[in-house]
């Protein structure tokens, strides 16, 4: 038993992939993207994460290929270092310590020993582009303090800086200015859009800039959706620009293709536009990319593009505008209203994904498994449009059923609710819509829960709503002689003095249903739907409600808005104990008696783990997060940990994940979860030359196992089977074309003989 480490809060994956532009390798085989403190290397063909380059101690803010050696990669970070990586092997080669907070990095082929970085020196919002000389030295860590100033008063985003025409000039935009600095002349020209001065509400702020790789041409994107192409800008008087207008909202990013013949642009419309020959007529579209395009990048070979989207996704697009691969991280675009759930089948974390979807996210691999389209309607991405929201979801019957609730509310009185029930189809390995219920309640649904007890053969679902009712839905047989079908119907409607129903939950064995109506908790018999008893503490509305598990199943816990945690004994129908605790999240561990509660105070959030049977907590961790924690969930571990100390025993079988208001997914662990995150990458490394497909993985593993088996067999039986590949008769039979083979009868005896063990081999062995 190793010495116990202290448990601490760690981030677990799900970092933003769309923070900066992705970068392609020179041969377009790999794509690099920043991901929190790491740089991820993905294969462009299989979308698989090949390496995670870890070493930075803060957010990575920029990556660029080394122009002198295309097998190396520069990265810069807020921790003030520039690191040089060998991405094929995932090795850190060198670290240059600059000392300032670095916001972006640029490299130029002509400037061999220096790179350009964006830093802010004095004021917090004044940024400078400086060139950093990288000293040549054999040591691992080198100080690079030799900075030379290039441009001042620039935007911190790397989208607003572009180097043009093989490094002859650099263009930077901010607000209403375009500044161009010529390296040879060492002069800066500044261009201002005329209309910006005259019109008050003209929204032609610059948003991004791109430079033509061959010619003297700068493309700028604007807030009003226009793209301007600037030429002759080396002359302050004679400069010209032309306008391209298709976007109706802000142009988020621009990129020229490698040859410069076409210009790519994207924005909130989530349509990638390719402008050919820089003319307004000649344009191609790739529509319905799912979310706002944040960044566009082009591979050096010119065969691939990629777009980074606001829903934490990178789409790799072929030259002919066909999407070929999607690298999807944890979607953090929308607010999480469904909470965190665990899919019982895949053990994936399930929560709101991109608009109208549920995402299934694998915690082990930090990878999205798939998206389930719940709303199934065309997504119109427009500012200020009221969208259909997915508000509730629940799994039932070991993942066989999924219930989802969606709503759209335009005005106070116009509420549109829809409940959908999805059945898991084993054949297609996915959820199929079974029943759609329009307006299941007349007001917002506050809670949805399935009865997951084993003794219930008939799946049962309960919904609680603000309209004062809770409804019990059961699965009924809907088949006739033409088809077999099942459907959900309402079985029972219950209410309690027209109070709003706020929470509902089933006891572990499914015999009792607890529904909270504002301040009052009611207990119903699930067989007859009779009201059994009520509990009322007059301590504010009930915010959370849950039954104890296993040995503590006689307890019911309720957390109120006034900061009281109550525990009732169901046998005596009396309050067992109560505690003053302002609980935000209360989550029972499905595999033990433990219950985790996260309380909120002005300083931060604290975690309490306790058993309902005793009011003394098992474990307390103060200040787990500075922000408000919104959701939490227990996940069963694949491999149980073995903490001996009593305080950590609740982590032995389960792991607790929680989500904060800024949507970072955190957990408790002794080590960084990313250390465990590289299960496939090592295998990939060994056989780089082979195409790595999922099929190859399966087959490869299978082969390995077979080899092992064969080895075992050899040792135990001491009989050496001849390797089939080495027998000439067999290879002759298998490799000769069929039309020149002699007849089968002729070959048969030879073939069978070759398979027999000769006496000599036996003697040898």
């Amino acid at each position, binding site marked *: 038993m190793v010495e116990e480490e202290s448990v601490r809060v760690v981030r677990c994956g799900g970092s933003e992939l769309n923070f900066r532009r992705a970068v392609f390798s020179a041969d377009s085989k790999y794509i690099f993207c920043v991901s929190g403190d790491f740089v991820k290397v993905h294969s462009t063909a299989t979308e698989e994460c090949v390496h995670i380059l870890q070493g930075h101690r803060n957010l990575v803010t920029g990556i660029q290929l080394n122009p002198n050696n295309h097998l190396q990669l520069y990265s810069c970070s807020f921790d003030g270092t520039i690191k040089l990586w060998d991405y094929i092997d995932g090795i850190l080669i060198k670290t240059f310590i600059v000392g300032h907070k670095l916001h972006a990095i640029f490299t130029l082929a002509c400037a061999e020993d220096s790179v350009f970085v964006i830093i802010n020196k004095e004021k917090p919002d004044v940024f400078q582009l400086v060139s950093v000389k990288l000293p040549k030295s054999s040591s691992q860590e080198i100080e690079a303090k030799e900075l030379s100033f290039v441009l001042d008063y620039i935007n911190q985003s790397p989208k607003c800086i572009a180097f043009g025409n093989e490094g002859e000039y650099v263009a930077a935009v901010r607000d209403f200015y375009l500044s161009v600095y010529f390296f040879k002349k060492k002069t800066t020209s500044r261009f201002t859009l005329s209309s910006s001065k005259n019109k008050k509400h003209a929204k032609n702020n610059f948003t991004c800039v791109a430079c033509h790789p061959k010619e003297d041409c700068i493309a700028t994107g604007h807030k009003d959706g226009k793209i301007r192409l600037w030429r002759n800008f080396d002359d302050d008087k004679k400069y010209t620009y032309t306008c391209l207008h298709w976007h109706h909202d802000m142009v988020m990013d621009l990129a020229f293709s490698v040859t410069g013949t076409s210009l790519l642009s994207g924005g909130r419309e989530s349509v990638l536009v390719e402008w050919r020959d820089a003319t307004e007529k000649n344009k191609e579209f790739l529509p319905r990319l799912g979310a706002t395009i944040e960044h566009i990048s082009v591979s050096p070979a010119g065969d691939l593009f990629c777009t980074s989207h606001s829903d934490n996704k990178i789409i790799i697009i072929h030259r002919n505008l066909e999407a070929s691969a999607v690298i999807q991280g944890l979607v953090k675009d929308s607010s999480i209203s469904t909470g965190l759930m665990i899919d019982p089948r895949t053990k994936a974390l399930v929560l709101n994904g991109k608009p109208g979807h549920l995402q299934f996210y694998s915690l082990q691999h930090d990878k999205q498994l798939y998206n389930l389209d719940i709303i199934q*309607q065309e997504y119109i991405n427009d500012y200020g*449009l009221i969208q259909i929201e997915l508000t509730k979801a629940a799994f039932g019957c070991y993942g066989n059923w999924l219930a989802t609730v969606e709503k759209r509310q*335009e005005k106070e009185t*116009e509420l549109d609710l829809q409940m959908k029930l999805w059945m898991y189809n084993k054949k297609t390995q996915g959820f199929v819509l079974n029943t759609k219920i329009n307006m299941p309640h007349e007001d917002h649904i506050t809670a949805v829960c399935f009865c997951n007890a084993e003794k219930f053969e008939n799946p049962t679902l309960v919904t609680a709503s603000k309209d004062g009712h809770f409804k019990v839905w059961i699965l009924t047989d809907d088949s006739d*002689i*033409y088809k077999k079908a099942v459907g959900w119907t309402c079985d029972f409607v219950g209410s309690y003095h027209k109070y709003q129903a706020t929470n509902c939950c089933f006891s572990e064995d499914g015999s009792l249903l607890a529904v909270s109506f504002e301040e009052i908790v009611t207990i119903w018999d699930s067989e007859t739907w009779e*009201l059994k008893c009520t509990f009322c503490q007059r301590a504010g509305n009930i915010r959370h409600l849950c039954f104890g598990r296993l040995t503590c199943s006689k307890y019911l816990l309720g957390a109120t808005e006034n900061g009281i945690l109550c525990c009732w004994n169901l046998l005596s129908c009396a309050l067992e104990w109560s505690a003053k605790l302002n609980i935000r999240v209360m989550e029972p561990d499905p595999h033990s008696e433990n219950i985790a509660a996260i309380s909120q105070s002005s300083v931060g959030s604290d975690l309490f783990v306790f058993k309902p049977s005793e009011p003394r907590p098992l474990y307390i961790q103060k200040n787990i997060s500075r922000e408000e924690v919104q959701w939490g969930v227990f996940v069963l571990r694949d491999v149980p940990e073995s903490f001996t100390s009593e305080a950590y025993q609740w982590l032995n079988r389960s792991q607790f994940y929680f989500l904060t208001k800024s949507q970072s997914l955190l957990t408790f662990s002794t080590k960084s979860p990313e250390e465990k995150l590289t299960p496939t990458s090592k295998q990939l490394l060994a056989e780089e030359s082979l195409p790595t497909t999922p099929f190859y993985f399966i087959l490869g593993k299978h082969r390995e196992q077979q080899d092992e088996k064969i080895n075992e067999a050899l040792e135990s039986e001491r009989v050496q089977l001849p390797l089939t590949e080495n027998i000439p008769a067999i290879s002759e039979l298998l490799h000769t074309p069929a039309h020149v083979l002699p007849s089968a009868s002729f070959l048969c005896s030879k073939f069978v003989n070759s398979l027999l063990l000769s006496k000599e081999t036996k003697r040898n062995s």
Partner: protein
Amino acid sequence: MAGYKPAAIQTYPVLGEKITQDTLYWNNYKTPVQIKEFGAVSKVDFSPQPPYNYAVTASSRIHIYGRYSQEPIKTFSRFKDTAYCATFRQDGRLLVAGSEDGGVQLFDISGRAPLRQFEGHTKAVHTVDFTADKYHVVSGADDYTVKLWDIPNSKEILTFKEHSDYVRCGCASKLNPDLFVTGSYDHTVKMFDTRTNKSVISVEHGQPVESVLLFPSGGLLASAGGRYVKIWDMLKGGQLLVSLKNHHKTVTCLYLSSSGQRLLSGSLDRKVKVYSTTSYKVVHSFDYAASILSLALAHEDETIVVGMTNGILSVKHRKSEAKKDSLPRRRRPAYRTFIKGKNYMKQRDDILINRPSKKHLELYDRDLKNFRISKALDRVLEPSCTVKTPEITVSIIKELNRRGVLANALAGRDEKEISRVLNFLIRNLSQPRFAPVLINAAEIIIDIYLPVIGQSPVVDKKFLLLQGLVEKEIDYQRELLETLGMMDMLFATMTRKESTSVLQHTSDGFLENKKVES
């Protein structure tokens, strides 16, 4: 990336009878032709051979009708008393009938006088049938006996005296010339084999048996008596397979549809029920004016003939389907066009390029896809769409609202177009399932066209109509709420337990509707 997702069309549960293949099939008949007979129609039998004439036994006459004739083409009326059970031979050339006086008469279809007369029964003969070899006749009578007659020399061959009550129904096997089944008022159905002189299988129906029917394969037997229809498995020695109780009164007749997939039963409760012979569930039922005594289907179910106690014969002909493809079909590409290149094996260096299958989109979806919103709305406001499928129109209005462009789509319409929209609103506004969407649309229209009101008398009239409709609806709602209040009071007096489970629907959405001022 992901393709265009078509607009979601709201589906509403169809009220009333479920539409199934069976209801479509059995409703596809013309309105019945009624023919008045002289007495209760006790038997209808179709000739198995073209032109599929049918014999109708009523009172002391047997009428032969052609398929589409309303007048009998031939009449056999030489019966002293009531005739029973006129049945065609398999070749359609001979007809046999029993009578009240105990005689069995055999007629040639072309002749008028009986060819043979079989004398031997002492009481009324209610059932006669030809055996499968065509040369024998089986008859069952009220003297409890079943007799087998030889046609060529009009001799009685065998007599079975196993029944202990009137024998009222019988049926000869279509496959085996030696087998036949009779049902009697002694509650039994017996299967006789002429080679053994006695019954081989006897089953207990439980009620006086009114009708028996052997399935074409001979393996299953259906018997009707009392309110029950029972199916027996004869190959298992007469085991009861299923017992059906779907009628309110005595079931009098059974018939099998030409495909053998559906069993029909007629009853004194004036209903004909259609059962599936695989699941024995009722899949359809017909209503008639009087109690049904007899029932027959023509070849390929072309005609349904039902005889009733009031002497009315109801004849229903199937609607002809030839009309549908009267238009010459456009020549489609040959089969080989579709399989071209399909069996090409991929070689080593080939790269397979899959063309994505083209998804069919409705016209309004195509407009929506290209953001032609006004055009999409125009399309669903066509009379053909608004009348037949108002839910599509409402769904598109809802979709436009979701996209936030409903006001744009409704704006800028001339008198004719706006009156079309208003017509739709007037027709559907009061329907509760459409109301939330349409009230919103009505409000937008009023907001848009308020400045130009009074310029067109046509549109003004429509607005007034809409106003009246809304006022009427508000009155209805108020009355409904009053009723609900009264009912609540009634429920409150009932037990506590039931009052918790009362489902209340107060849809007072209409009350918030804006008044139409014009």
